[in-house]
Each structure stands twice: as C-alpha cells, then as structure tokens.
C-alpha cells in the first residue's frame, strides 16, 4: 500500500518536473528585464494586499493578450447626494466609468478606491502622480473584506451555536467540531481571562474575548489561503477592533482604575512632593490609555501585512529569476514561512486577546489588587 503511494508520488513528481522543464525552456514571460519584473512583482504584492470591490479568485492573460478575471462581483454602495447601488462588475476592473443616478464614478486601479468623475471618467492626479484629487464619495460597499467578515461571522455563529446546542443534546459533552473548539474556549477562560481579570469580574468580558479571538484567528487563517484575503492586515479592521477594546476598557473602568491614572503614587508621599512628579506622570498615564489600544491595532496590522508581503515576495522570486535555483529555493522558503505564518495567525489572535484581557484587568482592578502593584508606574 505504502509502496503504491510512493510510486504514484514519484510518477507525479516526474510528470510535474517534466512540465516544468518544458516551461523553463520557453522564453521569459512577463517583463523584459529582471528589474522590470521586480517592479511588477512589487506592484502585484501591494495590490494583492489591498481591499477590492470584487471577489477575484485569479486572473490570466490569454493567447490574444486579453486579460481575464475569474471571480464574482460584489455590490457597491456609495453615498454622495443620495444612495448609489450597483454591481462592481460594471467597472470592468477599473476600466470603465459607471453612471448611477446622474453621477459618474471611476475606480483608481492603484488603490482600488472609487472617485466621482465627469462623463469621461478622467481622474486628476496630484503632483506626486498617485494622489487623486477627484471628490471621494462615502464608500460603504460590500468589499472583499466585508464579504469575508460576513463569511467568518456566519461560520463562527454556526460553529459555536451548534456547540452550544450539542451540550443540551449530548449530556454536557460537546460533539462534532465543538470537540476541537471547546478546549480553546476553556483555554481562553482559564489561562487568559481568569489570570488577567480575576475570578470575580472575568465573566462580563468573556463574550468579547472569545469573539475577538476566534474572529481574528479565523480571518488570519483565511489570509493564508491563496484567495488574496487580507482582512486582519487592514488598518481599518484592526482600528475597529482596538476601538472596541478601548471603549470596553474605559467604560468599565473602576474608581481605582481612574485613580491609578490621575493619582498613580497614591498616599505614598505628601501631596506637595507629588506636584512636580505629576506634571510628567499624569500626561504619561493619560497617553497610556490611548497607546495601549494603538499598540494593539498596529501590532495586528503590521504582523499580518508583513506576513503577506513576505510570502508574496518569496513567491515573486520565482517570477523574477525564472531559473532552476530560485524556483525550488523560494518554494521551500515560502513553504517554511507559510508554516510560521500559520503559527503567527494563532499567535496574533492570542496576543490581541491576551492584551485586551490585560487591559480589562487594569480597568476592573479594585483596591486590593492595586496594592499589589504599588510602586509600579509603567503599564504600557
């Protein structure tokens, strides 16, 4: 049995290498020089990480030099003097101007952003050649990222509501896919929420911690598929998540939490001595309130974005060099990086959840807890 599988694998590999060989014998594809191809790859990777208005699976150029896009369009929702709703297929990937309710819209193919134009669809570029000076409508389109948020939300809802139901049916023992997710839920409760927030107050933060962990983790994993999904590597997404952590932290903050910020030294020294210190300390503490969520949003954004860029660039090496050494080498490297990214996907979800729990812990601290931290000024 094993021998048979091995034989099949070998046959497959020989077939693949044979086809690769024929491919390698063809003249170089794409850009003429290595320099030009490098630029092409860099542009491609940059575009790949952007949010788009349609769900593109892949694109190719046929023998006649015509570009084909395989995927499906998504609805575009714009607001400028009224609502404009139409399908993204009308743009033909940024090549055509769309008329809706007497307004004309065109898409900038560099940033995939939609601008208001005249009937000719002319975009006016600024001095740097990239910045578009046309008016921007309020774009509430269901983009690829929004679509993926829908998909992941639906998945999460189905998985965890079925897990919740399986308890009733199966005498408190999870069944199906819940068997895999239940330990993770318990891990978040026992090793993230309880140690950081405390036994008495962790319950009210649990729904957020669990949702944010699975939401980020699932989207990170989707980002590793070759579909070009980069939701958690988008600054708007991480900002929205960090903003919720920020609001939850500060809206549930106890008296001791605010006292810790505006009177960090407490009764450890006379008030007269505190004045010069507080001129520095209080701004730092107040700044800390904002730096904490800011570090969250930048950390997640940068890690996911960087992972996509590294993977994209490594795969691009095949295209840039087009030879027998760079091909397998970049394949091996990107395979290794993919494995690391798989870990990073989980790790970043964990870190986001962990730090959120830590901040909630600060916010819900009571006086006994604050005593344990006495003398500790920095909480960043």
């Amino acid at each position, binding site marked *: 049995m094993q021998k048979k599988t091995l034989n099949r694998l070998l046959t497959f590999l020989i077939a693949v290498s044979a086809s690769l060989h024929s491919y390698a014998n063809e003249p170089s594809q794409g850009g003429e020089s290595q320099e030009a191809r490098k630029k092409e790859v860099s542009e491609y990777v940059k575009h790949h990480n*952007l*949010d788009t208005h349609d769900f593109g699976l892949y694109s190719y150029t046929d023998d006649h030099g015509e570009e084909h896009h395989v995927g499906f369009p998504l609805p575009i*929702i714009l607001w400028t003097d009224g609502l404009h709703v139409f399908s993204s297929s009308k743009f033909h990937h940024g090549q055509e101007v769309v008329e809706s309710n007497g307004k004309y819209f065109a898409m900038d193919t560099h*940033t995939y*952003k939609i601008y208001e134009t005249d009937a000719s669809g002319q975009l006016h570029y600024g001095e740097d050649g990239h910045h578009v000076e046309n008016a921007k409508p*309020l*774009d*509430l*389109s*269901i*983009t690829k*990222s*929004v679509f993926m*948020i*829908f998909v992941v*939300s639906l998945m*999460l*809802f189905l998985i*965890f*509501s079925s*897990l*919740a*139901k399986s*308890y*009733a049916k199966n005498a*408190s*023992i999870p069944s199906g896919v819940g068997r895999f997710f*239940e330990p993770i*839920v*318990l891990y978040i*409760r026992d090793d993230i929420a309880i140690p950081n927030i405390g036994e008495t107050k962790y*319950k009210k933060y*649990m*729904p*957020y911690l*669990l*949702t944010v962990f699975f*939401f980020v983790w699932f989207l990170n994993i989707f980002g590793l598929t070759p579909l070009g999904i980069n939701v958690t590597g*988008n*600054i*708007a*997404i991480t*900002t*929205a*998540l960090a*903003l*919720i952590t920020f609001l939850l932290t500060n809206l549930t903050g106890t008296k001791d939490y605010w006292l810790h910020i505006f009177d960090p030294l407490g009764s450890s020294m006379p008030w007269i001595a505190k004045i010069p210190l507080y001129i520095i300390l209080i701004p730092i503490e107040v700044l800390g309130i904002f730096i904490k969520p800011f570090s969250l949003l930048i950390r997640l954004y940068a890690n996911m974005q960087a992972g996509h860029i590294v993977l994209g660039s490594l795969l691009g090496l095949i295209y840039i060099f087009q030879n027998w050494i760079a091909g397998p080498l970049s394949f091996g490297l990107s395979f290794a990086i993919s494995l690391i990214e798989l870990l990073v996907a989980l790790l970043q979800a964990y870190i986001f959840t962990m730090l959120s729990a830590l901040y909630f812990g600060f916010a819900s601290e009571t006086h006994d807890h604050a005593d344990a931290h006495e003398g500790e000024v920095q909480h960043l």
Partner: protein
Amino acid sequence: MEKLIGEFSIGLFFWQTVLFVLLLLLLRKYAWKPILNAVSEREEGIRKALLSAENAKREMENLQADNEKLLKEARAERDLMLKEAREIKTKMVSDAKEEAKMEADKMIVQAQAAIESEKKAAIAELKSQVATLSLEIAEKVVKSELSNSDKQLKLVEDMLGDATLN
C-alpha cells in the same frame, strides 16, 4: 503614516464595527453564554461526583473499620464465653465431687451409727441370753448338786471355808 491613513477605509471600518458588534451580541446570546454555562455546570457536576465518590470511599472505609471492630468484639466475646464455660465446667465438676464426697461421708457416719446401735442391741440381746442361759445352767447344776446330801454338806463346808478365809 500618510500611507496608513490613505489605506484607512471608512466604509470598511463602518462595516467591521457594525458586523463585529452584531456578531458579538449574537454569539453572546446564542453561543458563549450557553457554552460557558454548560461547561461550568459540567465542571460543577464533575466536582460533585468526585466529592461524593470520595465520601463513598470514606464511608466504605468506615464500614470496613466497623466490621473489623465488630468482628474483633465478637471474637473477644466468644473467647470470654468459652473461658467462662470452661470455668463453669470445672466448678461444676468440683462441686459435684465435693457433694458426692460429703454424701458418702454422711452415709458412712450413718452406717457406722447404725452398726454401733445394732452391735449394742446385739450385745444386749447376748447379755440377756447369757444371763438366761447361765441361770438355766446354774439351776441345772444346783439341781444336780443338791440331789444328794453329802454333796450339799460338802458345798456348805467349802463355802464356809472360803468365808473364813475372807
């Protein structure tokens, strides 16, 4: 930084916030609360089961100890009873022996008394018979003696001779 702000899409931010909050509320109601409740109920159940198992074990141990104690007591009681029985037996035997001996002594004394009285009666009887017999003999002798005058004279003379001597 400018690039970051340029990449920031208000639409995406809006959808993310709305959808995430919606997801959070839905999951909280239909998933997290039931899951966490079920899990903590299960944990409570496990803890209770473990506790009751521990209790049952302890009770079992207590029972066993009780049994052991009862057995020991029973054994001790048995030993005691055996000992008592043995004592009673020896006592009874010795008592019986004593009594028999006493009875025998009494009987011997009575027998001796009876023998004594019989002997006395027999002797008395013998004496009376000897007296009667002696009288008869004496009568017979006197009769024969006194049948001739010579002999009577002689006897008187002998008696007188003795009397002078005295």
